[in-house]
């Protein structure tokens, strides 16, 4: 159709006539610039939020089923008048039943979390005390830094040993080596056997905050200390007495705060969840537990991301449509302004397609330049959002490619009509045009 040489000439001529009407060209381009940059920025913010959510869920483990103790809603309102201690939540028996029912699943139990103060020499630190099993690290998002984790014999003999996390190590021991040192918690000494650090950015509790009515009160905790679940049971019992509220005294008996069940593969996650729920519903009179399936959360997150993308896409389409109409408007004005030039070119041997290419290339230059500038602006906005708004943003190459090809498509679509109109003008009439 056209040679490379003609192409470069067309582009040169287009550039010149766009330059001749600089202000008009820039204003026309603004529509595309803002359209494209907002698409990229919105996609980047959406992608960032979505990836963070997905990563957080993925850290919970996609083959895991997490069962959490939840305070039943009616319990405090009605039963406390007759019953001084509210008994609810997951039990050791539940964990044992899971293990028997699904032999090839790994079951990890974690006792309720108790806020305590840990003492070492003259230092004191508010901590969360967690009773758990020896194979807890296999399923939990923690990794061992020093020493070892709790062992099976620690658990069997209810040893007074503990594993501390990085925060405790840093704040309580400062520069001392914590391993083999003793920490005093609630009048008992616990020997530190290992140091772990959490691989997660935010805790599961934080992530599920919106899903669970009353998240455990972890505010002000300086770190976590893990002790064998048996030790926890024998030293601290399962009853916590809280003072306050309208009834004056409120007792709670909770055995386990969380049970994590890991199945060997993803296909078994949902059937296993049904089995677990069946077991729980048989032994729990009230809904005092909650089943969290990270896999489902992940799927839900992906689904909601898709909906988000569709909404975003339609907004982007509308804004680019508006920009495109603006471009068409300007190009129609340009064509009628340059009617005489078109007549001259036709008289000098320009074919209709030459005229089409001429005007189309101007529109494309406008939209593609606008697209490139929009991409640059669209890359800056998410950086600013991350910097000032402390929100994660991810600029994907797909978003860049998408918005650029949209701007090219807008140029083609809205440039074609004015260009064809120009080409179809009668050369004699055009030459007479003032």
């Amino acid at each position, binding site marked *: 159709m056209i040679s490379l040489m003609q192409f470069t000439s067309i582009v040169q001529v287009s550039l010149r006539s766009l330059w001749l009407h600089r202000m008009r060209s820039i204003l026309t381009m603004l529509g595309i610039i803002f359209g494209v940059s907002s698409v990229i920025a919105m996609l980047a913010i959406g992608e960032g939020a979505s990836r963070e959510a997905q990563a957080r869920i993925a850290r919970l483990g996609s083959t895991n089923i997490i069962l959490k103790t939840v305070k039943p809603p009616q319990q405090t309102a009605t039963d406390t008048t007759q019953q001084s201690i509210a008994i609810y939540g997951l039990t050791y028996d539940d964990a044992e039943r899971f293990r028997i029912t699904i032999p090839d699943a790994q079951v990890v139990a974690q006792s309720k979390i108790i806020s305590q103060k840990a003492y070492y020499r003259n230092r004191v630190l508010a901590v969360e005390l967690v009773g758990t099993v020896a194979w807890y690290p296999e399923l939990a998002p923690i990794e061992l830094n020093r020493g070892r984790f709790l062992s099976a014999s620690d658990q069997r003999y209810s040893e007074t040993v503990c594993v501390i996390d990085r925060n405790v190590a840093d704040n309580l021991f400062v520069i001392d080596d914590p391993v083999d040192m003793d920490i005093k918690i609630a009048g008992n000494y616990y020997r530190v056997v290992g140091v772990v650090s959490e691989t997660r950015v935010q805790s599961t509790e934080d992530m599920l905050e919106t899903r669970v009515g009353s998240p455990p009160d972890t505010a002000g905790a300086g770190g976590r200390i893990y002790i064998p679940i048996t030790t926890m049971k024998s030293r601290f019992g399962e009853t916590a007495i809280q003072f306050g509220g309208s009834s004056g005294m409120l007792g709670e008996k909770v055995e386990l705060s969380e049970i994590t069940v890991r199945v060997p593969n993803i296909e078994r996650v949902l059937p296993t969840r049904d089995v677990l729920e069946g077991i729980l519903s048989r032994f729990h009179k009230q809904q005092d537990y909650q089943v969290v399936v990270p896999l489902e959360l992940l799927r839900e997150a992906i689904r909601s991301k898709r909906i988000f993308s569709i909404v975003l896409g339609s907004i982007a389409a509308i804004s680019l449509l508006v920009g495109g109409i603006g471009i068409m408007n300007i190009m129609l004005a340009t064509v009628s302004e340059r009617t005489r*030039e078109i007549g001259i*070119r036709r*008289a000098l041997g320009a074919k209709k397609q030459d005229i089409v290419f001429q005007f189309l290339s101007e529109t494309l230059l406008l939209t593609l330049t606008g697209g490139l500038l929009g991409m640059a602006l669209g890359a800056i906005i998410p950086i600013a959002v991350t910097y000032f708004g402390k929100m994660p943003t991810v600029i994907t190459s797909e978003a860049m490619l998408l918005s650029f090809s949209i701007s090219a498509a807008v140029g083609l679509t809205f440039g074609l009509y004015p260009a064809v109109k120009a080409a179809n003008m009668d050369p*004699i009439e055009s*030459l007479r045009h003032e």
Partner: protein
Amino acid sequence: MAYTNTSEKTGSCQAVVQLKNLCKSYFLGHSELPVLREINLDFYRGQYVSIMGPSGSGKSTLLNLLGCLDRPTGGKYLLDGLDISEMDDDTLSGIRGKQIGFIFQSFNLIPQLNIIENIEVSLYYQQVHKIQRRQRAEELANRVGLGDRLKHRPSELSGGQQQRVAIARALANDPLILLADEPTGNLDSKSGHEILEMLDELHSGGKTILVVTHDLNIASRTQRSIHMLDGRIERQTVNGGSG
């Protein structure tokens, strides 16, 4: 790129332009408005012809037809033996670019292009390579005495200079015929005189030139004058001419 002389094949005695019962009508709704009625004319290679007549006599329409900007509604127009009335739009564009050189009353240079680029336009549409294009355009600019103004815009030139650029542009593809529509109409007498001398010179160089004019002085320089009235050829006169 260069025009090849097909008349060598068809015989040198054949007319460059042959009009046979050429008719052109415009249709306004259902009523037919005849502008040209059965024109029969032959122009031969190297002739310098003027077309005269009052406004509305159809001379502009005839020029548009000769320039392949329009198609007749009846009769035949043979340009160098080829029937124009049968051709499609793209072929006509090609013919305009290669075989016809236009010189307009109001110069019709493209304002955003400089002189050399204006001369190059018709070469460009014939897909002449950039280097040859530039070479040819410079050569023509020198020939019309504007070799030192190549990078100027048309608005920076006088009317006479602009018309010289237009002549250079018309000559770019070495066309079969040059069509000039009131070439001195927008010029002062001195510049007009220069342009006419340039046309004379081209004629003595062998170019076939058709000039539409009101001016008897211009007509008297041509070999042959065709007087038109009401879409018909009223009479033809043979002048002393410069050739």
